[in-house]
């Protein structure tokens, strides 16, 4: 039985702050709390557009006091790893004194018994601040420490937030058979009972006729085939990029198949000799060293399965015979 597929999705979001939120975050970093004034109404956190009319706003920023009143609250008994506290706490709507609408933030109390709508609370700034909404939280009025304003730093023009999500699901039955085949050194495709076309990996259904294809449609394809298309990628340097030199991703139509394997890494072969029609033979990683890590229900990378592709030395396949394949 193959294990569930687990995926970690992370995006390191970087956002510019602009003329309203920039000063707000700069002030937070310094230990001050700002709101924005619109026709006598004060919003904290400041908004860039009037929530009632959508009008774009000139930054008329005002400093808020430390105290406010709870307008609504809830008690989080089991915080997630990303919540502001690792112990039970409250989320609350807090109407800061002088504000028109409340702010949503975290409120730290020892027990939900202390919570009530109407209770007075105060801003508690953290000692280590970076110019983010997480630089403070609320505590019951009178229990916090006095704020210490530290000015003179650079304006906060960018904020960063790392998004981190985990996904888990079992391989679907047809994908499980395909993956097990790879571990066993075989390419398993599926033949459509309608068109007779063979796709790899099988999807569990006919791609055009929307008819399910079960295990009886499985068949083993050759581990050699022809290049039907390729692209030379010149890497640009973005966050997480590991490539530095140009490399090829190719589509390879295995003998006996009707859909090519796409995005195949064929590094090691000289770029200037690579061509459509080239005949290639898969060289498998030794059994026991094969890694299904990049195979899930939605995408397949053979990098952990196939060590490299070697030219077979056969005459090239006729490119005209690939007319049917767009990729």
């Amino acid at each position, binding site marked *: 039985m193959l294990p569930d597929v687990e*995926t970690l*999705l992370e995006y390191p*979001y970087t*956002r510019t*702050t602009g003329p309203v*939120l920039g000063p707000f*975050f700069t002030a937070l970093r310094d230990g001050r709390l700002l709101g924005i004034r619109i026709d006598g109404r004060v*919003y904290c*956190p400041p*908004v860039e*557009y009037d*929530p009632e009319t959508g009008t774009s706003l000139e930054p008329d920023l005002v400093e808020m006091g430390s105290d406010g009143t709870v*307008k*609504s*609250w*809830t*008690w*989080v*008994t089991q915080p*997630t790893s*990303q*919540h*502001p506290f690792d112990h039970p706490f409250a*989320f*609350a*709507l807090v109407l800061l004194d002088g504000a028109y*609408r*409340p*702010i*949503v*933030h*975290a409120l730290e109390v020892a027990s*939900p018994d202390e919570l009530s*709508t109407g209770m007075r609370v105060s801003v508690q700034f953290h000692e280590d601040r970076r110019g*983010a*909404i*997480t630089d403070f939280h609320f505590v019951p009025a009178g229990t916090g420490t006095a704020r210490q304003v530290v000015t003179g730093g650079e304006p906060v023009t960018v*904020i960063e*937030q790392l*998004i981190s*999500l*985990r*996904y*888990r*699901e*079992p391989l*679907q*039955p047809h994908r499980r058979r395909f993956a097990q085949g790879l571990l066993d050194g075989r390419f398993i495709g599926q033949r459509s009972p309608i068109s007779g076309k063979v796709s790899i990996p099988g*999807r*569990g*259904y006919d*791609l*055009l*006729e*929307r008819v*399910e294809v079960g295990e009886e449609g499985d068949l083993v394809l050759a581990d050699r085939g022809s290049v039907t298309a390729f692209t030379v990628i010149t890497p640009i340097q973005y966050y997480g990029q590991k490539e530095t030199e140009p490399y090829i991703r190719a589509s390879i139509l295995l003998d006996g198949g009707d859909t090519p394997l796409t995005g195949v890494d064929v590094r090691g072969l000289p770029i200037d000799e690579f061509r459509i029609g080239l005949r290639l033979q898969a060289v498998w990683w030794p059994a026991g060293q094969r890694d299904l890590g990049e195979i*899930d*229900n*939605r*995408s397949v990378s053979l990098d952990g399965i196939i060590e490299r592709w070697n030219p077979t030395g056969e005459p090239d396949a006729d490119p005209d015979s690939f007319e049917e394949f767009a990729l």
Partner: protein
Amino acid sequence: MPRQGHRPVAVVSFAQADNVRRELRRNEVETLMPVFAEVFSNIGITKDDVGFICSGSTDYLAGGPFSFVSALDAIGVWPPRTESHVEMDGAWALYEAWVRLQEGDIDAALVYGFGKSSMSDLSKVLALQLDPYVLAPLWPDPVSVAALQARSLLDAGKATERDFAEVAARSRKAALSNPKAQVAYDRNVAELMGEDYVVSPLRTHTLPPITDGAAAIVLAAGDKAFEWAERPAWITGIDHRVETHSLGARDLTASASTTKAAEVAGVNDGTVEVAELHAPFAPQELIVAAALGLGDDVLVNPSGGALAANPIMSAGLIRIGEAASRIMDGSAGRVVAHATSGPALQQNLVAVLEGV
């Protein structure tokens, strides 16, 4: 003639997948395939009879890019077809298709929504729809946000915890006659009130289930609708409105955007017999019903609503499908469907559907 648009457009077919807590054997494409087969065969057409396709989904559910593109495999789009997508509930895909059909050059559209919520932690995924500067970094989970809204409702004197339980009891009981329901039971209010708080003041019965699912609707214009359906559910009004993303700046005890959309769609221009409301949390049904101005005589959520099954990205579209089904099966003449998106009812779509 419809109140909006110059070309009458109707729902003529609706189908949905089984709503389940965890779909272990099928991916999104495999989940959609039988849904499409059913939505077409209901009215004896094929994929070649629709000129436009629009879907609603979010890649954050699957954790992979462009999942809406691979989902097209479930239709088999060859020869190529005009297709579009919204990163929203399928109800908004239906709105786009309704607009597209107004152009007049095509007569039918396929609309669908899909998503598997079971693969990830929804409490984190849904936190990402919040304001990314001043809210998302605190990771308020959807249950906590709904709880803030529920307590605001209680403190404003607009509802009681017993009202929440009555919504849940009525919805889950109605769901007993919905074969696609995921959570259905006949339990009295007192029993539900005895449950512990999950996130105060929300008890288990006030929360939606976590659901893997999908749904599809075929829209047809003019004569084509009569050709395909005996009783088309004509969309005589449809509108959607959004409120500020600044959660604290909103009055969480009301739904101004629902009220505005209802005015434009003409909800109260006639008698409303049935309303299918997309209120994932029980207290939200009270807010939406009030915002729509529904009277006590309106049959609300005979399907059980989102409390019976809440497939993210299709639960709103299912409300339209369920409401339309009441027209198509002849049991009602004028119905309202509502869909919501965003935290605490931030964005709302309202449609009025009528028989001839």
